[in-house]
C-alpha cells in the first residue's frame, strides 16, 4: 500500500506495462524529459529511454498517424494528446482511420493502441482547454472509451487498455490529477467494460463518470441525510458499456440520475437514458433526470466555471427536488 496521486498513477500504470511488454512504446509532446505538462509521465524517459519514450513536434496528426501505423505493424503504442480538446486537430486519424480500419479490412488489421488525454474542466483553463469529450469518442464505432476516477483504477484500467487489442481512448479527468488515495503494491490489472457500484441504496441510482464520481458520492452522503438513499455507479468504461450492471442497479431503485461533466446534448447520459427507457421501461418509477454542464462552452473565470460544472450542491438539489415531487 502506498499513497499515490492520480497523476502518479498514470506513470505507474504505463511503467508497469512497459516493463512487461517490450512492444509498448509511448509518444507525445513534452512527455519525455519534461515528464508531461500534467507531470503524469515523470520518470518514464529515465527508465525506458528515448527510443521507447519519444517527444514529438506539435503535430497531433503525425502523433496519432504514427501510433496507428505502428500498431498495425506489431507495436503497442501509447500516444498522448495533451488536452482532450486537441483531439479536434487530429480527429480524422481517430474516427476515420483508427476506428474504421479493422472493420473496412474485414479484420485484416488490429490496432492495439491507447490514446490518453487530459480531459475536462475545473482548472480554469477556459473553453479550449477544459471540455469533456468522452462523448465525441463514444459516438464513434470502433473506439473503446475508458474514464477512470481513482488512482487505483487509473493503473488497472491503463493496464487493461494497453493489453486490449482494440484502440482505447483513455481520458484522465484533469480535475482529479491531484487527488490521492492508497493504492496496493504490485501489479494491478483491471477489466474494461465493467462499471463499479460504489454505494448501494434503495431510492435512486446516480450514475457518474470521471471527475463527477467523487461529487456523486458526496451528494449521495448528503442525500442520505435527507432520507434519500442512493446507489452510486461509476461507469468507468463507456465502450464497452457495462449495461448489465447499470440496468440491474437502475431497475433496483426505479430511478436514474446521470451526473455528466459534458455539455448536455448527445451526452452518454442521454444514451444511457435511451437504453433504460427501451429495455427496462416498466421498472422505472419516475422521470430520468440528467445533471450536466449546461449546453455552453466552458467559461474561464473560477466563479463561472464552478457554476457551469455540476456541483455536489446541484446534484443534491436536483435529486431531492425530483424525488420529492
Amino acid at each position, binding site marked *: 500500500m502506498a499513497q499515490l496521486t492520480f497523476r502518479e498513477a498514470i506513470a505507474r500504470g504505463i511503467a508497469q506495462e512497459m516493463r512487461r511488454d517490450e512492444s509498448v*512504446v509511448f509518444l507525445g509532446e513534452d512527455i519525455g524529459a519534461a515528464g508531461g505538462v500534467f507531470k503524469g509521465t515523470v520518470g518514464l524517459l529515465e527508465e525506458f529511454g528515448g*527510443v521507447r519514450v*519519444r517527444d*514529438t*513536434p506539435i*503535430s*497531433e*496528426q*503525425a502523433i*496519432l*498517424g*504514427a*501510433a*496507428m*501505423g*505502428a*500498431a*498495425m*505493424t*506489431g*507495436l503497442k*503504442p501509447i500516444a498522448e494528446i495533451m488536452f482532450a480538446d486537441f483531439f479536434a486537430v487530429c480527429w*480524422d*486519424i481517430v474516427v*476515420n*482511420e483508427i476506428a474504421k*480500419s*479493422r*472493420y*473496412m*479490412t*474485414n*479484420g*485484416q*488489421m*488490429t490496432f*492495439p493502441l491507447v490514446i490518453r488525454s487530459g480531459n475536462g474542466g475545473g482548472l480554469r483553463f477556459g473553453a479550449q482547454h477544459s471540455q469533456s469529450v468522452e462523448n465525441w469518442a463514444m459516438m464513434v*464505432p*470502433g473506439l473503446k472509451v475508458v474514464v477512470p476516477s481513482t488512482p487505483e483504477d487509473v493503473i488497472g484500467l491503463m493496464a487493461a487498455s494497453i493489453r*486490449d*487489442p*482494440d484502440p482505447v481512448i483513455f481520458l484522465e479527468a484533469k480535475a482529479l490529477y491531484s487527488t490521492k488515495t492508497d493504492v496496493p503494491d504490485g501489479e494491478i490489472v483491471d477489466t474494461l*467494460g*465493467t462499471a463499479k457500484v460504489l454505494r448501494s441504496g434503495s431510492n435512486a441510482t446516480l450514475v457518474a463518470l470521471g471527475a463527477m464520481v467523487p461529487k456523486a458520492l458526496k451528494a449521495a452522503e448528503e442525500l442520505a441525510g435527507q432520507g434519500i438513499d442512493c446507489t452510486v455507479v461509476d461507469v468507468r468504461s463507456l*465502450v*464497452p*458499456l*457495462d*449495461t*448489465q450492471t447499470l440496468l440491474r442497479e437502475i431497475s433496483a431503485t426505479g430511478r436514474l440520475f446521470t451526473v455528466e461533466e459534458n455539455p448536455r446534448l448527445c451526452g452518454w447520459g442521454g444514451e444511457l437514458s435511451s437504453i433504460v427507457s427501451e429495455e427496462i421501461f416498466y421498472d422505472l418509477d419516475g422521470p430520468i433526470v440528467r445533471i450536466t454542464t449546461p449546453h455552453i462552452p466552458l467559461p474561464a473565470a473560477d466563479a463561472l466555471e464552478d457554476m457551469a460544472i455540476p456541483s455536489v450542491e446541484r446534484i443534491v438539489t436536483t435529486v431531492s427536488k425530483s424525488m420529492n415531487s
Partner: protein
Amino acid sequence: MTTTTPAVSPMDLDEKLALYRTQLALRFFEQRAYDMFLENLVKGTSHLSLGQEAIAAGVAAAMKPTDWTFATYRGHAHTLARGVPMTPVLAELLGRSNGLMAGKGGSMHLTSVEHGVMGSYAIIGAHLPIACGAAWSAQFRGTDQVAVCFFGDGSTNIGAFHEALNFAAIWKLPVVFVCENNLWMEYTRTTEVTAVENPAADRASAYGLESIMVDGNDADAVYEVAAAAIARARAGEGPSMIEAKTYRHGGHSRADPGKYRPDSEVAEWLAKDPIPRYHTRLLELGATEDQLVEIERDVVREVDLATEEAKAGGVPGEDLLMKDVWADGGSSWRN
C-alpha cells in the same frame, strides 16, 4: 530538378518484361473494371489509374515483399502491383463476399496485409502520417522494412502532408513518399490552388529533403529513383519524397468524363502513354513481338478468369456485416 544516382543495378530484360506485364495487368484490369461499371456491376465509386501505371509498377518492382504500400482511393494499381491476385480485388469492386475485404471496404480501401498492402485511404493526407508509423515500427524493431506512401498532387496542400514530412525527417524514418502529379485534383487544376509549380518537389527543402522529380510515364525511370530512395531508407538514411509527373487518361472517378481538361492536353498525354512507350523500348532492347503478344494474351486470360471468379462470388450476409468491428471478431459495444 535534381535526380539522384541510384545505388542499384539496372534491370535486365527479363525483369523489364515482368515490369511490362505488371503495367499491362493494371491497364487491362482497370479497363475491365470500367466495363463492368458500365454494366452496373461495379457499385459505388471507383477511381482509375489508367495512364499512371508506370508509377505503381515501377515502384513495386523496387520493393521487397516485406515492404509496405500505403495507397489512396485510387489504389487498384498499387494493390495489384504488389502481387495481390485480381479476383479478390475485382470481387471487392463488385461488393461480393469473395472480395479482398468481403465487400466491407470497397474500391477505395483495398488492403492485403499478406502482400504488404497496408490499406488504401480515402481521406486526403491521412495515410502519410500512418505510413510514418509503420516506418517507425520497422526502425524500432530493427527490420529492414520500408514504407512507401503514394498520394496525388492535390494532396500536398493538406495539413497532414506537412506534419508527416516533418515527422519522417526528424525521426529519419524509412519511408518513401511518392507524389503522383497528374496535374489535376478532382476537377480543378492543382497549380491553380498551389503556391508552387511542383507541389511536392518544390517543398522538399522545407523538410530538409532533396528535391526529386521523375518522369512518371517511364517505368524504368520510376524504378530507378524508387530503388535509390528505398535503398537509402533501408540503409537508415531517412525519408525521401519523389514527385512523378503523369496524367490520368480518364476522369477523376467512374462517373466523370473529365471534360474540364483541354483536348490538347489530353492528346499530348495520351501520346506519352507509358505502355506503348515501354513496348517500343522492349523491342529496342531485343524483346520479340511474340514475347510481348504472349504477355498480353496471358494478362487477358488473367483478367477474364478474374472476371468470371469475381462474378461468381456470393452476396455478403449479415454475419459479415456485424463482424470485426473489434478484435474479438464481433461488434458488441456492451457487456
